[in-house]
């Protein structure tokens, strides 16, 4: 198959880091904080690489939008097996206000430019939890979408996607080209092994600006404030079962 897959990867604050709200409450502290690839994006990359290993697609292209540092994230995707990368340069204020709408416009433009047959994204990013980019990209391209995918199979010219939904699992068949968003159980991302890390250094990352793609990255949203969640109250130790029952009654639990 001559298919080309576009995989979007987002650089986010590492999931193990303790998040701090900035003193001016305009956002969270990102300076000097450990960042890494969004876990759902890792799963997306893994799926794309798997498809290539099964010879169902020919080329995997990793894309990320942001400042210089996102090149690290693209390199990680390359080390996992992507063939080349595209760095869409967005920095400063534009980067702070970059959201799903702008990113999906960028991805749609790139998909057309690169003649992609399939776009795989993580279902959502762990920093904003928007869960919108995949859906918006599909809409802009007028492509079908298989979101919350826990299984993806290419059968003839169609995509069979098993989706995780509230009631259980839903299996759909959609035409290619399509957009798929990866859910947790789709796969377990591989560790990038040394030989691949070395090879990745030689792979190309192209630089592109949103303007080159005809995309306006200004935001229509304004963040008013960011607050910490309410502090968790300490538990109370009781001496006897009597006390426990009393306290539960007080709290209106029984």
């Amino acid at each position, binding site marked *: 198959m001559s298919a080309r897959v576009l995989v979007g990867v987002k650089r986010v604050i*590492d*999931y*193990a*880091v303790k998040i701090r709200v900035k003193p001016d409450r305009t956002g969270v502290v990102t300076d*000097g904080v*450990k*960042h*890494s*690839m969004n*876990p759902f994006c890792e799963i997306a990359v893994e799926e794309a690489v798997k498809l290539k290993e099964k010879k169902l697609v020919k080329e995997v292209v990793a894309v990320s939008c942001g400042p210089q540092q996102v090149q690290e994230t693209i390199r990680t995707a390359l080390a996992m097996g992507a063939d080349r990368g595209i760095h869409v340069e967005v920095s400063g204020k534009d980067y702070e206000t970059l959201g799903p709408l702008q990113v999906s416009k960028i991805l749609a433009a790139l998909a057309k430019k690169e003649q992609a047959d399939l776009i795989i994204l993580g279902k959502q990013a762990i920093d904003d939890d928007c869960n919108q980019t995949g859906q918006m990209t599909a809409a802009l391209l007028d492509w079908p979408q298989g979101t919350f995918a826990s299984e993806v199979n290419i059968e003839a010219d169609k995509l069979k996607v098993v989706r995780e939904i509230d009631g259980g699992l839903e299996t759909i068949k959609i035409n290619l080209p399509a957009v798929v968003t990866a859910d947790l159980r789709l796969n*377990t991302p591989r*560790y*990038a*092994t*040394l*030989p691949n*890390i*070395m090879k990745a250094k030689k792979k190309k990352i192209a630089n592109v600006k949103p303007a080159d793609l005809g995309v306006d990255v200004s935001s229509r949203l304004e963040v008013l404030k960011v607050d910490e969640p309410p502090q968790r109250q300490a538990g109370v130790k009781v001496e006897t079962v009597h006390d426990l029952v009393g306290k539960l009654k007080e709290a209106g639990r029984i």
Partner: protein
Amino acid sequence: MNVRHYTPRQQIALFHFVIILQKLKGHEEVNPETPYTSDTVGNPGAAPPRLPFSRVTQEDLAFFRTLLPGRTITDPDLLKSSNVDWLKTVEGNSEVLLRPKTTEEVSQILRYCNERNLAVCPQGGNTGLVGGSVPVFDEIILSTSLMKQVITFDNISGILTCQAGCVLENLSNYLEERDFIMPLDLGAKGSCHIGGNVSTNAGGLRLLRYGSLRGTVLGLEVVLADGRILNCLATLRKDNTGYDLKQLFIGSEGTLGVITAVSILCPRKPKAVNVAFLGCSSFQQLLETFQCCRGMLGEILSAFEFLDASCMSLLEKHLKLTNPITESPFYIVIETAGSNATHDEEKLHKFLEEVMTSSLVTDGTVATEATKIKALWSLRERVTEALTHEGYTYKYDISLPVEKIYDLVQDMRGHLGDMAKNVVGYGHVGDGNLHLNITSPSKDPALLAAIEPYVYEWTSKWKGSISAEHGLGLKKRNYIYYSKPSEAVALMGSIKAMLDPKGILNPYKTLPDNIH
């Protein structure tokens, strides 16, 4: 009996001989004063008969209850977990657990126990591996679990002062928020107390970079056997005024005094931490990788650990962890810690390229993100846990010349043959410290007899230590002669007699039985 002039092997033989003599004289019945332990009577690792300490009376309990209201535990259910060690191989029958909150309370407890001739077993997180942290008989358990205050922290000098019952992981979290870290780290961090770490001179995963507690501990507050409080809680880097008493208590396993507070020098939190997990096809190549690592990563190297293929299969089998690279006979965990991520990555990548192209290393992976780093470290840190699922584990913590480390594992495999289910090796290879573990479905005296004293004689032959970092506790006290000359042990006995004339502090531990 003066055993000073015999070799270790002869001393142990004499020990056995004495036991046999006793048996012949008619002491055949199991002595009710000898508690149940993992080993059979006549084995140097088993407990000796109970020494003539007083027994706890109602009056004693009344005293403790007045001193520590609500913190004098006598409920057998609550006492159970404090009477058994983490490995579940040693069990005592203490009937009293005390939980002081202050140094003053500890002082009053010890003064009272010393007058009454009541034995005391100090206990921190109870994570020790040589049976040193639990009572052997009915010793009163003195727990530091409520002494968990941080006293001061100076963020210019990095000197932390805290009570002995602070859990290591909590201290790490406290420090990390202030941009510092503890100078030591070990698998037991979620449970162990800093007081226990200091009493056992714990080594751990960062010793390679930050040195031992003997260098990083700046001061101690200790309560002596008679209740006197020795406050040497200096917070000075340099202080050459008289004998350095704290060094006596570091590593003394609670037998010379009870540590109640510690002041320790903490390093800055590194800005960039990387972990590489590598596979080697032979131990020789592992050693050469170490050489290369030292040369190319020198100043940023913070850990160099290894595990063998047997360890990896146990991790996969019992803990369902995944091997991130292709199967290899040996695995290395390398950690770098530095102040500049770009510089460190460059050094690390150059090193990795070098060892890959020269085929010293057959495969590997690198992590910079916190989650992945944790995942890679768990492959080394959880081996101990995986082993507990295999039945009964015989643990040996040996220091050897680095080149000889794996020879011991291979010789042991050959020597034991089918008797053992698993013989695995892992540990702080960078420090010359091997953790040799042998498992069998259940405890097996015949297997133990095949392992000991073979393993100790092997170690002694290469002038190694029979306990690199775990200490002697109950299980290894009588093997001290394999690593220390009798003059040294005799002097230790004199110091013990001077500081604790009645011998109430953690009896039956650390020093050999024949010291009396």
